[in-house]
């Protein structure tokens, strides 16, 4: 197939992304929107909330003469504070993306053959419900598993729960922040949550362990990070790569990848040996200090130096800095933390350091998130189902997520048929081919299915494997579930259409409701239009639905979020009623009650450890079809240390391929020769190297880290997939 150059592509589609006046010039697809909106001359502002990542910032959509012009942050929103991140601003491109899914598709070739019949919604939903009923009748509802990421899946999950399904999962647990939530729950009885409860803006000193804030653009967190810089906070960054955050740090610790726990144990050691911890706090609120003191003794900075490559003096100096500013100092819990397969233990070390700093719910460290109380809609109860979930047989991973499940557990069960067969997958808003480690296993599992339904906005790789593809409207075009995030102030945000969809895309709630009707579950939808549902919830909370629609956000009454403001410090959700330095729950399940360090496997000679992260202008593999964001970063690069590149005779910008320990070869990708990374690893942005031909802008642009992550080490505590234990060689193309 001839690859489309951007220039050619523009000629074909007849449109340039030129914005308001020129924007969408003569394309047919947008004209349908236009005619609906022609009467709307001038600029109309409509508030909603963003979904280009999961921070859910409040936005204001500007519609000029009926066409989407630009997006700005909603000034009253605590998450955007009136400013959107680059992806949020670029959300305009989600609407105008010419490669969007336009109408329901039913596959007419073999799986993966990418031949499709365009069909009607009625036909697609009839076929879907027939297949689901067939599978349920033959194998029971347990044979259907769901992968759903983001707030848009709320209504779909409602329909499927009503249908008797219990096997739900989201990559946010086993591929992202699961170990963090489990570790904090074990220690404090409370999770960190999203948006994070870190009080960066008031902090005097904080440490980031591999967290690349500034490249990871979670909006208010980045704003607070810049505020902390301005106020002169001491920033400590631990990362094998000289990240953006590292460039802002007073202390940069270029750690050997995989040895973070050794550093953290040494920090605990110094805190205790030098009596730098908050003694009153430890006495009053923690459990297991004396045992910890004994346990930690061998883990000196000198011991850690051998593991981490960080000078003992630097280890001492940095933890002394953190201790000096306690309780307005903290070690950041991170977000994407499934790295090496012993990740709960690493984050447990972070929880212990924070406990020794006495910083829980203290200004400048962690706050207690508060949430608006909005009653649920009174649905009939879901049918009682007595089968066990498929992804964690016999509770193999005792602390696996219940809400978010284990994605790869569903995949394994689908391949092996154990503990019971899985015959259908329903996938909403997550591109599993790029999300899960080891693509081969994902495809093997897909090939075992009788039915694969994908609901998406773009022709992602997973959509291209589906039997039925249902095109959803993008977030700027639809109503959705309310945003009731736990944060600094209680608030509720509405998502409502800023602009009409350009083709026959439908809203997630509509798809979910229609599917329910086809499945004979109409009684689970006492409302006909989502606005009835939203109005009911808002009004039963004593709020004005009209005000919410006009302002986009309603802020509740301020509540104390710090001990400093009179908040009571209690730990009712741990076994001991205290912060568990010694984890009674881990001990009860046969795990070490104190954090353990395992030396990670070394790359063989000639190999480099493969690390991955984010570019500030893309979200996962979801935005590489967005014309605006692709204009910012159109392909990823492999970061290679300059000295290494010299010996390999690779110059900046050369095309290379990576080959991993299992012989998997990447797509060709540019080398970024830089001093900003250790010589023993390479780094790339996640989300590139798409193989779906219908993603014309993204097709074979850059390389896919997911493709190279054939090895993953499962955390025995919670079942997360550690993905940083893959090694690659570098070859010039």
């Amino acid at each position, binding site marked *: 197939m001839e690859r489309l150059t951007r220039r050619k592509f523009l000629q074909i589609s007849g449109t340039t992304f030129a914005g308001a006046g020129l924007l969408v010039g003569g394309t047919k697809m947008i004209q349908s929107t236009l005619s609906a909106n022609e009467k709307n001359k001038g600029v109309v502002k409509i508030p909603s909330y963003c979904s280009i990542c999961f921070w859910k910032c409040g936005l204001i959509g500007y519609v000029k003469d009926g066409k989407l012009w630009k997006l700005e942050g909603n000034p009253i929103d605590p998450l955007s504070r009136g400013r959107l991140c680059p992806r949020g601003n670029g959300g305009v491109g989600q609407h105008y993306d010419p490669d969007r899914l336009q109408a329901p598709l039913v596959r007419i070739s073999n799986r993966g053959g990418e031949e499709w019949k365009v069909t009607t919604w009625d036909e697609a939903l009839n076929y879907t419900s027939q297949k689901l009923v067939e599978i349920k009748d033959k194998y029971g509802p347990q044979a259907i598993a769901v992968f759903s990421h983001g707030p848009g899946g709320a209504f779909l999950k409602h329909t499927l729960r009503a249908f008797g399904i219990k096997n739900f999962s989201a990559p946010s647990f086993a591929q992202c922040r699961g170990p963090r939530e489990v570790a904090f729950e074990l220690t404090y009885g409370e999770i960190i949550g999203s948006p994070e409860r870190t009080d960066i803006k008031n902090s005097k000193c904080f440490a980031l362990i591999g967290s690349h804030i500034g490249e990871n653009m979670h909006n208010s967190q980045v704003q607070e990070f810049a505020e902390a810089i301005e106020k002169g906070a001491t920033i400590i960054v631990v990362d094998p790569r000289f990240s*953006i955050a590292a460039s802002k740090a007073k202390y940069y610790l270029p750690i050997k990848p995989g040895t973070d726990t050794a550093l953290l144990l040494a920090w605990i050691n110094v805190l205790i040996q030098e009596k730098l911890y908050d003694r009153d706090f430890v006495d009053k609120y923690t459990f297991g200090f004396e045992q910890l003191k004994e346990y930690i003794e061998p883990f000196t900075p000198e011991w850690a130096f051998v593991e981490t490559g960080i000078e003992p003096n630097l280890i001492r100096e940095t933890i002394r800095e953190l201790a000096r500013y306690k309780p307005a100092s903290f070690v950041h819990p991170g977000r994407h933390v499934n790295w090496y397969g012993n990740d709960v233990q690493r984050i447990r070390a972070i929880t212990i350091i924070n406990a020794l700093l006495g910083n829980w719910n203290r200004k400048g460290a962690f706050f207690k998130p508060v949430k608006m109380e909005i009653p649920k809609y009174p649905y009939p109860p879901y049918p009682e189902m007595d089968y066990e979930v498929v992804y964690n047989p016999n509770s193999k991973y005792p602390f696996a997520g219940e809400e978010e499940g284990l994605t790869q557990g569903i995949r394994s069960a689908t391949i092996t048929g154990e503990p019971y067969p899985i015959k259908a997958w329903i996938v909403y808003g997550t591109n599993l081919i790029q999300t899960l480690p080891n693509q081969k296993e994902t495809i093997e599992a897909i090939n075992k299915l009788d039915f694969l339904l994908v609901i998406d906005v773009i022709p992602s790789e997973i959509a291209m494997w589906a039997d039925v593809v249902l095109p959803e409207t993008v977030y700027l075009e639809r109503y959705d579930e309310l945003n009731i995030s736990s944060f600094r102030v209680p608030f509720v945000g509405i998502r409502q259409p800023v602009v009409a969809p350009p083709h026959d895309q439908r809203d997630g709630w509509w798809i979910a409701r229609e599917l329910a009707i086809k499945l004979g579950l109409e009684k689970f939808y006492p409302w006909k239009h989502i606005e009835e549902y939203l109005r009911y919830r808002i009004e039963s909370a004593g709020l004005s639905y009209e005000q919410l629609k006009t302002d986009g956000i309603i802020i509740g009454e301020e509540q104390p979020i710090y001990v400093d403001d009179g908040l009571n410090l209690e730990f009712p959700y741990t076994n001991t009623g205290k912060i568990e330095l010694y984890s009674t729950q881990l001990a009860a399940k046969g795990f070490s009650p104190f954090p353990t360090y395992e030396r990670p496997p070394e790359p063989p000679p000639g190999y480099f450890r493969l690390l991955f992260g984010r570019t500030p202008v893309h979200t996962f593999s979801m935005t590489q079809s967005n014309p605006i964001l692709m204009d910012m970063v159109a392909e990823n690069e492999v970061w290679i240390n300059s000295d290494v590149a010299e010996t390999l005779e690779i110059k900046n910008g050369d095309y290379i391929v990576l080959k991993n320990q299992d012989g998997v070869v990447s797509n060709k990708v540019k080398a970024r020769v830089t001093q900003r990374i250790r010589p023993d690893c390479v780094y790339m942005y996640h989300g590139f190297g798409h193989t779906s031909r219908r993603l014309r802008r993204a097709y074979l642009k850059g390389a896919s880290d997911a493709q190279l992550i054939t090895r993953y080490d499962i955390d025995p505590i919670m079942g997360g997939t550690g993905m940083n234990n893959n090694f690659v060689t570098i070859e010039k193309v």
Partner: protein
Amino acid sequence: MARYAMVIDTTKCVGCMDCVVACKTENNVPEGFNRDWITYETIGKFPTLHMEIRSERCNHCDNPPCVYTCPTGASHISDIGGIVLVDYQKCIGCKACIAACPYDARFVHPDGYVSKCTFCEHRIVQGLDPACVASCPTHCMYFGDLEDPNSEVKKLLNSRKYRVLNPETGTKPQIYYLI
């Protein structure tokens, strides 16, 4: 008369390209072109590195070579705070200004005229900040009138260390970088 300028705090900038995207949607900048961009300058050897991150654009120079080289008078210094603008009607797309600009801030728009940063003239006449400044999540950019001693830009330049780009060219640029 006002003298509009931009002050950008490189210590806060994370180089996220938010300013680039905000400009793109605000001003309908065509695909493949940008009016502003990010420069990362790294010195040193791993792990002892220093990196400066800058959001760059037209410097709206007091002594603008683009204006002097323009054969038609399309490139001109505007009455609005001394900002440098291009009159698209007068521009013949000869690219003399592009050659003259030491900041590489200009490009030929697909419609045939030369385009670049306008400091969001249409916004500043309404009392709004340029889109990049208004959107920056790190609040690292400031816009204002250097003639006004109480303006934030003036106060920042009075109190902080700063530099400008290519001062040796004598253009008297009006984008100031706090360092």
